[in-house]
């Protein structure tokens, strides 16, 4: 199946990305020896929380136990200690590995669809729903007849024959509970 082949290719790409990154990491390790800004694990996790693990795809980076993720977190630490802001680090990852690594994809380009679709769907649904509701509503004149009909249909609950126009919640509840 082509779809599944594609999936495998993507896995391959991810693997390649990890390998490339490891090479890059080795190169970067040299200047990093001169770091001075202390970076805590919490700082690293704060950035990693909004990134995805490169191998396990839908697992957030800060909690993933795999080695690849540990290496990525190390890279984050590196960049933070060199003075990058959390946003810059995330932007770096997005540049290197695509927007796919961002747990909170930026609202630009085609990802706008992601945001627009639910909003459009909910609004359209709301419009449809309210029009439907309006169509369903009947004029006040019809109502009385209908209620009487309804009442007759429900003879098992005798008081329902009475017009229900006055809204007496308590007595209605009592009546509903009475025969049980």
């Amino acid at each position, binding site marked *: 199946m082509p779809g599944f082949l594609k*999936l495998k290719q993507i896995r391959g790409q991810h693997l390649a990305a990890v390998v490339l990154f490891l090479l890059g990491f080795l190169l970067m390790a040299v200047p990093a020896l001169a770091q001075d800004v202390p970076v805590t*694990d919490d700082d690293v*996790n704060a950035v990693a929380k909004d990134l995805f693990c490169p191998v396990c795809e839908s697992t957030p980076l800060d909690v993933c136990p795999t080695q690849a993720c540990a290496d990525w977190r190390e890279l984050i630490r590196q960049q933070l200690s060199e003075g990058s802001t959390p946003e810059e680090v995330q932007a770096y990852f997005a540049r290197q590995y695509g927007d796919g690594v961002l*747990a909170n994809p930026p609202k630009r380009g*085609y990802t706008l669809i992601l945001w627009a679709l639910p909003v459009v769907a909910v609004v359209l649904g709301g419009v449809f729903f309210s029009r439907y*509701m309006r169509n369903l509503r009947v004029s006040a004149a019809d109502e009385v007849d209908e209620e009487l009909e309804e009442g007759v249909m429900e003879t098992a609950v005798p008081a329902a024959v009475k017009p229900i126009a006055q809204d007496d919640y308590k007595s209605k509840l009592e009546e509903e509970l009475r025969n049980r």
Partner: protein
Amino acid sequence: MIPDLGYLALILALAAAVFAAGAAYYGRHTNQPRWIESARNATIATFPLITISCLLMIYSLVQGDFSVEYVWRVSSRDMPTYLKVTALWGGQAGSLLFWNFLLSIFTAAAMARNWRKQKELMPYAIMVASFTQIFFLGISIFVEHPFARLAAVPADGNGLNPLLRHPGMIIHPPMLYLGFVGFTIPYAFAMSALISGKLDDAWIKITRRWTLVAWLFLSLGLVLGGRWAYDVLGWGGYWAWDPVENASFMPWLAGTAFLHSVMIQEKRNMFKMWNIFLVLLTYCLVIYGTFIVRSGVISSVHSFAQSAIGPLFFAFIAIMFVFSAYWMLKRRVDLHSENRLNSLLSREAAFLYNNFLILAILLVVFLFTNYPIFSELITGEKGFVGPPVYEQALAPLFLLLLLLMGVAPLTMWYRSSAERIGMSLRWPALAALVFIGVLFAVGIRGWGALLGFWVVSFSLILTLLEFWKGTRARMKKGENVFVAYSNLMARNRRRYGGYWIHLGVIVMAFGIIGVEIFQEQTQIRLAVGETASLGRYEMVFLGATRYAGPDDLLITEATVDVYDNGRYVGQLHPRSELYTRTNQPMTIPNARSTITEDFYVLMVNWEPATADQATFRIYLNPLINWVWAGGLIFVIGTLVAAWPDPAVERSLSRRRHPVVTPTD
């Protein structure tokens, strides 16, 4: 020999299912009850046959017959017996066999329970259920063959995926599967009603009951899954909007919408088309969910279940969808509402608002879950939607739903007066305002959290008031408060069981707001004797030891002393486990649980070389136990509402045939 018998039993079950579908069709069209009865017997026969197949698979697993590929794949000699049994659903082929088994239980039970009263609906119900069974049996027999043999018999097997070795895994998958499979029965009856054109009350009653059963199991599966994630996966949370979690959440949502809107049909004979649609939607989402879980089309942490059965599932969903849509359109005239909506402020309208919100949530979850597929189609690159996005998009919808949950029970059928509802809401709204005022005074900030807590406490008060009003109404008969309450529950189980479910959701919502907004965490490297602190808690690292566990397990266990406000409250033992055969690590948390919060400790790193140092990740999860408590209340409420009650069934059938005198 044994595996061949298991295979044979499956083939016989397939033959029985094919015969059942054919005989039901033939019997119905030639009007020969004998054939329909024969179809019923064949349907019931699939149950013992698939049971035999499952038992033989379990036998092979327990015996360690590694000539069977599946046994080799998911078990090993040193696994304890209970894990060998549960390995039945520890892999693809076994899960599908188990799916088949559960489906045969449900169909046999439906035959036994509904045969006498629902003769007219039976032929098509048998056909639809059998068709589903045929599809899954076909997959088991022709694609994911559980009894396939290996040419050379290996000395030992691979062992079960470590994630699945937790005791929670014994019960979580079967519950989810029961929930999934269970929705086949309501679907079968709904389709049967559509095809036969018998669209009176009968099908809705059966469908509601079976939906409630399936929904109960699915709810249990979801809650247990959350608990399992919290106890085993080691990331401090219980729900990650993982595709597989969403796959089981979506049919749950559709089922929830149906269980509400079905009441409009029962009471007012309205929205028949809509109810049919919801049943069909639920079923399609179940199959789609199985497809997501089983095909690995959207990668997830559950990807141990991947294989290439995707296209078959896709075809099956398409067929069922077209089939359902065809019959729904064909019968659209018969499904026309006999009544109309009188007011936008009525019980029936409230149910519609509920449906609108639930379907909006469903739609958002569906779009986000499938985003990787859209994204890959458009850009060729897989993107994922992370939990923050879900939370932003869904929080307002969930809050509205919670608000509606509190207010809706105040509405009445036909119409309600805005004035009365306003009066009833005034004091609870004010009380909830006082409550968040108190929260603000004790230092809780953030408008999101305060708004959330206001909505939830408002709904809580309104729900409790419903119980009080009902109890009061009965106390007028001279019963004391306890008798009145228990009679209220016993005699109106569906209504007040439903309110218990609401109560469970509200308690869970408190917990979810607490964890989502106020979770604190820190990660720190400690040497022996050093202290970490988070919130009121302090933790002293006392050291770690490494020892061999059962199977191929290597366990590293840390010991920490925990102090709450400086007072010693006990020791915790977070562990890291390594399955040496597969080199798969697991981080098992240990938590100190109280009603207000969990102090949850993970040991994320420990180097044997520097044995006196370890890295810990510590979470403070406020109100997390409310999530579990709410889940428990929820399940109890569902049991109350769903338990068969002969008296109520009699009174319901009496109401449908109103031959009673007005003085009754």
